[in-house]
């Protein structure tokens, strides 16, 4: 502890990059992974070496090779190309579900918390009701009831997703509502809408952004899980969870299931790092040296 203060200061300067890395490194890495996947999704038509639906049963289940970097699947389709196209669906589903869920949740939870009384009670009971079910099973039942398809599955996910955000938004608004700057706004005579949306919501946005970012990863996993159970996409559309499901019965052709799984893992890790990074960045208490 009692090492030379001067040399410590020097070391401090020398380790500037190290500190940056420790503090933002993971977030930067996460952002890079997420951006990479977004780029892949956008550029899919350009970079995918083959069409994703090019069936050729004479080339089925080829091991990774120069022609097919990640091998081919049971219908002879190029796994890499399907992986690349699949990023579109996974990212789209994950981001849209969370975005709409968050918007809905914030609207419902925020208004309920601010209004208090009956509205709040009603909202809490509604979220309680949804939270009575294990999320995956409820989503499953709804998706099964609505019929298979990306849109229906996303609707099913939304039904189980919004309460989480409503509760978060509620607690955030409750925290902010007792802050003095909100009282100041009341004293100024501003209307409730103005106070809620101009004063409270912008300040509650930070934790929300964190949760949203972390949640995109969870949503991607959930969507893939539903797909895996056969409730996600309509073939021949490529989707990572469905691809794992297609490959899981194949014992010797490990590449069919392994690569889409790795894709899910990487994109979720990316979002988690990014979310953690944003959290650290927003919350001075958790800042690392």
């Amino acid at each position, binding site marked *: *502890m009692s090492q030379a203060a001067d040399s410590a200061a020097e070391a401090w300067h020398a380790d500037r990059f190290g500190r940056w890395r420790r503090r933002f490194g993971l977030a930067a890495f996460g952002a890079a992974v997420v951006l990479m996947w977004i780029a892949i999704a956008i550029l899919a038509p350009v970079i995918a070496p083959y069409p994703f639906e090019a069936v050729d049963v004479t080339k089925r289940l080829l091991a990774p090779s120069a022609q097919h970097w990640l091998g081919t699947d049971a219908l002879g389709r190029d796994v890499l190309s399907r992986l690349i196209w699949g990023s579109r669906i996974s990212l789209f589903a994950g981001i849209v579900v969370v975005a709409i869920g968050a918007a809905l949740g914030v609207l419902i939870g925020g208004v309920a918390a601010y209004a208090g009384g009956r509205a709040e009670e009603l909202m809490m009971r509604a979220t309680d009701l949804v939270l009575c079910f294990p999320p995956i099973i409820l989503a499953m039942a709804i998706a099964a009831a609505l019929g298979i398809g990306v849109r229906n599955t996303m609707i099913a996910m939304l039904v189980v997703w919004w309460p989480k955000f409503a509760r978060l938004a509620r607690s955030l608004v409750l925290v902010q509502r007792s802050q*003095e700057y909100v*009282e100041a706004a009341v004293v100024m005579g501003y209307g409730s809408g103005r106070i809620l949306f101009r004063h409270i919501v*912008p300040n509650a946005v930070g934790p929300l952004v964190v949760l949203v970012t972390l949640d995109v990863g969870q949503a991607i996993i959930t969507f893939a899980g539903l797909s895996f159970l056969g409730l996600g996409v309509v073939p021949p559309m490529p989707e990572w969870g469905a691809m794992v499901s297609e490959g899981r019965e194949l014992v010797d052709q490990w590449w069919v299931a392994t690569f889409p799984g790795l894709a899910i893992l990487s994109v979720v890790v990316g979002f988690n790092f990014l979310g953690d990074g944003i959290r650290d960045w927003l919350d001075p208490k958790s800042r690392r*040296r």
Partner: protein
Amino acid sequence: MTDSAPLLEVRNLRTEFLTDAGPVRAVDGVSFEVEAGATVGIVGESGSGKSVTALSILRLLAENARIGDGSRIAFRGRDLATLDEDEIRRLRGGEIAMIFQDPLTSLNPVLRISKQLVEGMLAHGRQSQAEALRHGIDLLARMGINAPERAVSGYPHEFSGGMRQRVMLAMGFANNPSLLIADEPTTALDVTIQAQILDLLKTLNREFGTAVLLISHDLGVIANVCERVLVMYAGEVVEEGPAEALLAEPRHPYTWALLNAVPRLDQEPPADKRLTAIEGAPPDPSEPPSGCRFRPRCPFAVERCGEHPDLLPVAEGRKARCWVTQAGERLLKPSTAAAVSAPAAEAGQPMLSLRNVVKHYPLRRDALFSPRKVVHAVDGVDLDIGRGETVGLVGESGSGKSTIARLITRIQKPTAGSIRFGDIDLATADRSVLRPLRRRIQMIFQDPYASLNPRMTVGQILSEPLRFHRLVRGPEEAKARVGELLEMVGLSARAAERYPHEFSGGQRQRIGTARALAVEPELIIADEPISALDVNIRAQIINLFVGLQQRLGLTFLFIAHDLAVVRQVSDRIVVLYLGKVMEVATARDLFAEPLHPYTRSLISAAPIPDVAAERKREHIRLAGEPPSPVAPPSGCRFRTRCPVAQGICAEIEPPLAEYRPGHRAACHFSGQA
């Protein structure tokens, strides 16, 4: 180790923190001694390095702290800075005990008091569990805790702040330490409780012969307890000497400024009501200014001050770090400005008048059919504020001061009573009636950090109300007006583009004031606007208020728990206790002849930064703590702590009776002590 060696000798202590923004040198070459059985005080503004100095002694610093190489902390001749972990651990809580500022967080909330009390003794292995517990109970009794046998089995949340600090003291004395370091032990407490704790500290020092190193930012507290005082500024000791001499005649301009920035209970405020405030804020510890660190704020600075001064003797037993006093200059008492005739309060119809205002907070029911408990936060308050008048509202924590503020501004609706503002009863007015009134009544909040929306620029914060209330036409006009407002509160117009977090606490309080002024209100409620600020900044803000009041003819309700401050700014003072008014009088009358025993004890509990005066004062010490507002005592609410209470007080609630024109008190024995 010779007999003459001091108990603790700190030499050239340098402590720095490695942070993201670079190394922060929090303590920079501090030296001092504590003799066995002595009482030494350290004062200084927030961030001056007081706590870091104390923590450095026991090496309880955060992980990112480094104690510099040349530093020596000798305790009975052993250098603490180089002891290994195990050796220093044995000293902690054994030979040297330490207690901290916040008694609410210093006790582990999930452990029983008994466990926390004995573990320190057991860690030093001198007693068995049973002995330790018995000793602990004895100590608690010694610290003035009733029924200590029962108390030890409780949890911290069952104790009030003052009680917890007593428990902390008991823990500190558990192993008969020879040195007790107390880091602002009373800052979080009310004056009456503070007085109890300080008394206790003095007695313990006397009876156990334990040396005390007391840290405080309040010169009055130091004067009350300590023989010697160190004054710290920006990580350095700037002056050191016997308390009496140092306070009577400071030899460093910073000490001088500290002393003059606080209003004193034993002195009438000057006619212009202003305090001597030095401008600016303490330097950023990561980049201290070259030369004398106080130079940028020093009203006495001379050319030589560009050179860094050493701490040199200036008189017998006194040292100071100042070129000016080195050269033999005296620091004169600030001249009081010529009295400006303050506009007298208009007689007649008061601007705001509260009648029998009640606010009860129902607590959440524990179960469906259990009776609802109610907090009697404000319980029948009458209060008048005349146009152009400043009314001060004082009372201990929880007495309902903020609640009254919230009711007047209608952040909350009163349970009963009327609040007349002009022809309108604010208590029952609905939204549409209230709306136009909003701009006529404004509020300034306690917490300068929480009261500004962190996501808006200062410009937005100030222009939003202007546009909302249509006080300006177009953005241009708004911008101009924002500039004017900022200048009015002593900030530059450029501040409009910045965000609140880029300002210091004092500056934010100015911004909050500007926001209240923006809508040109007639009445401003200021709820402890200075409690969270350092003395100097406090003085600046008080001066700002006083100036505004005189310039704009505003009406103020000024809430504070510090009597001296209230006296400084107010025309009339209302003393509140447990949601009831105890006494109302003009500032002068109240201090000249307090009628209510509560007022008298409040006045006598507040310490004065003058050793001689402090010794001469009559002290009425209140026993115990304020009762819970859930079940206030019957009859007179104050009777449970009242030194003159008698049978009648428990039965009949004394009315707020007028004893002299404008001087009312609610006591059966007004004026008798």
